[in-house]
């Protein structure tokens, strides 16, 4: 039996990716795509053979929705989903502020809703093996963590501080903080942040370097800048090194790549293509499973609140020019 799902808003760059994957997922029926921009919504919907509709129509037609709107709109769409008792898979970050993230989490918990975060890296096989190795004790005592999650600057609403809650810090802190928390069971306790706007003429930061401390005392360095050149053959990266008393383990989420050099036309000439198991596909399968009441690895809204707390601490650190404690 299939589950009816829909994509709520086409504003996020991942909406198109999710639409393509959901349209092929045997366990799901992509019943529609909703959005305020009717033309873009229709175009997206047509490209995968589904219906374009309003948000309210979509909520009435589905068992679960992927919320792919600008971050500032998440709360409004999640409330609509709660009114219709629809399961939620929300793009990160959950909200533009820690206070709003907590409020959304609490509203969902009160209603007992199925509410998960779109954290595909938890479904990355290298990351899953890293977790297994870490839990087996292979690393020993964790001394330090190093991570990167750089990417191309996405533009659009992502660089509007009111809609996105910030720039590269808001966009590219979540994944690696979430995966390190998930793998190690440790929380981020302190953040020192260096940010700047160096690559683009935009009103938000595109440099995002965080030096953190974990609850066991390990240090944690993360570069989440929008520093990947627009013409880079691959969009970005997601890597984690765990340095321990016994060993260092490294995982590269998108390490499986081959290159494609095109020698015709005027489009992109050189592209790297990921050929490993697709974490987005596994994320969507898990969301469908969670609608059915099956347990999954998915990140909860409480996980999202914890990464939102790290993001808030990072911005506070920039303002104060010193390391700050993370308040959850």
């Amino acid at each position, binding site marked *: 039996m299939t589950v009816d799902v829909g994509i709520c808003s086409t504003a996020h760059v991942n909406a198109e990716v999710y639409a393509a994957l959901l349209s092929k997922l045997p366990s799901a029926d992509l019943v529609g795509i909703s959005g305020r921009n009717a033309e873009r919504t229709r175009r997206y919907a047509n490209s995968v053979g589904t219906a374009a509709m309003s948000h309210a129509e979509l909520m009435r037609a589905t068992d679960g929705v992927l919320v792919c709107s600008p971050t500032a709109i998440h709360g409004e769409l999640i409330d609509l989903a709660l009114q219709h008792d629809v399961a939620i898979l929300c793009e990160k970050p959950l909200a533009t502020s820690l206070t709003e993230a907590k409020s959304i989490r609490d509203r969902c918990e009160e209603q007992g809703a199925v509410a998960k975060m779109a954290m595909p890296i938890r479904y990355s096989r290298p990351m899953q093996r890293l977790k297994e190795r870490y839990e087996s004790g292979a690393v*020993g*005592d964790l*001394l*330090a963590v*190093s991570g*990167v999650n*750089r990417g191309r600057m996405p533009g659009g609403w992502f660089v509007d501080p009111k809609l996105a809650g910030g720039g590269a810090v808001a966009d590219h802190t979540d994944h690696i903080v979430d995966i390190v928390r998930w793998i190690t069971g440790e929380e981020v306790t302190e953040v*020192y942040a*260096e940010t*700047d706007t*160096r*690559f*683009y003429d935009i009103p938000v930061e*595109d*440099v995002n*370097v965080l*030096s953190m*401390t974990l609850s066991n*005392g*390990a*240090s944690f*360095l993360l*570069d989440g*800048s929008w*520093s*990947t*050149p627009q013409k*880079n053959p691959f969009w970005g990266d997601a890597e984690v*090194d765990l*340095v*321990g*008393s*016994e*060993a*260092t383990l490294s995982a590269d989420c998108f390490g499986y790549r081959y290159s494609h050099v095109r020698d015709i036309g005027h489009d992109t000439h050189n592209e790297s293509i990921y050929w490993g198991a697709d974490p987005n596909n596994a994320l969507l399968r898990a969301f469908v499973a969670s609608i059915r009441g099956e347990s999954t690895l998915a990140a909860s809204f409480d996980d999202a609140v914890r990464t939102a707390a790290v993001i808030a601490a990072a911005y506070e650190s920039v303002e104060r*020019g*010193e*390391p700050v404690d993370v308040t959850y």
Partner: protein
Amino acid sequence: MQRIVAVGSETAVRKHVERYRRFDDATVCGVVDADREPCVDEGVGFDDIDVPRYHSLSEVLQTTDGDVDGVDICGPGAAFVDALETALAVSTPVRCDPPVAFDAETFDRLVTASTESEGWILSHSPHRFSRMYERLHSAVESGGIGPIGVARIERAAPFDGPGWNVSYDGVSVVEGPVRTLCAVLAHDVDVLEWTFGPVERVFVRARAGGRYDHAHAVFAFRDGGRATVGTRWHRAETPAPRIGVEYSGKHGRLDFSEDDASTALREGSTPLAVDPPEDDCRGRALRAFIDRLGGSERPPTDVAPVTSSRVVVAARRSADENRPVTLAEESP
């Protein structure tokens, strides 16, 4: 013919003596064995170096009646402050690796001593003399990637040769891992400042334990841009890759990893040196020292470069006090 005294641990001195031998205009007139924990990784004794061996630089100066043109400290100056001060006291120029000091007091004392002396200190990282870094530097300088946004360096080994981790073990036993790791950071700071201008602010965290030590630093440059340097050092095994460097600017990105260099010539899985010793990065650093000794001009400052060591002093303070340190606070 420039008469050089080489001061340092056995392994480092042997490498430098090998290079000086290939220069026509230099000779090593004495070596000062500063080994605290003798290294045996190469299986060859120190005595096979056909050069008089001494216990201190003072002993060399006494024995040779001061007939020494330059002192080459084969390692970070900070590990051999006595030799630095002895050389400056008799107005003899010194070459060493950065940093020249780990604390502000020693740093200020050395800067003062060099100012008052006819001697001077050259403390560039040998990385500056590698062809790889030269190409990166010139690419940035010519505007190849535009203004820097983020530079990122990952380093699991500071120097050439497969025995590096053995020497780290020896040094870290005496100096402590945080100080040793800051000595490693000094090389990257030197190259970063050379390429992107002065560092304005630094924040460092360091951890030590078990077989691994780790430190990371976050830098803000005075002209904008940020950099991270992450080091991890295993006591017994060589992590791979040993080095990764990436400079991302407004108009593009430059990067290299150890794989770029180690694939040039291999024997099985072991990379082999391609450059002859006198023309590798260390050989070229020594060549620059000899040329400076033979020239009529002093370096542009009495300690050159002076700022990379200042940044390391600030880095130590940041690690100790868990706060960012702005370099203006570190001015001598």
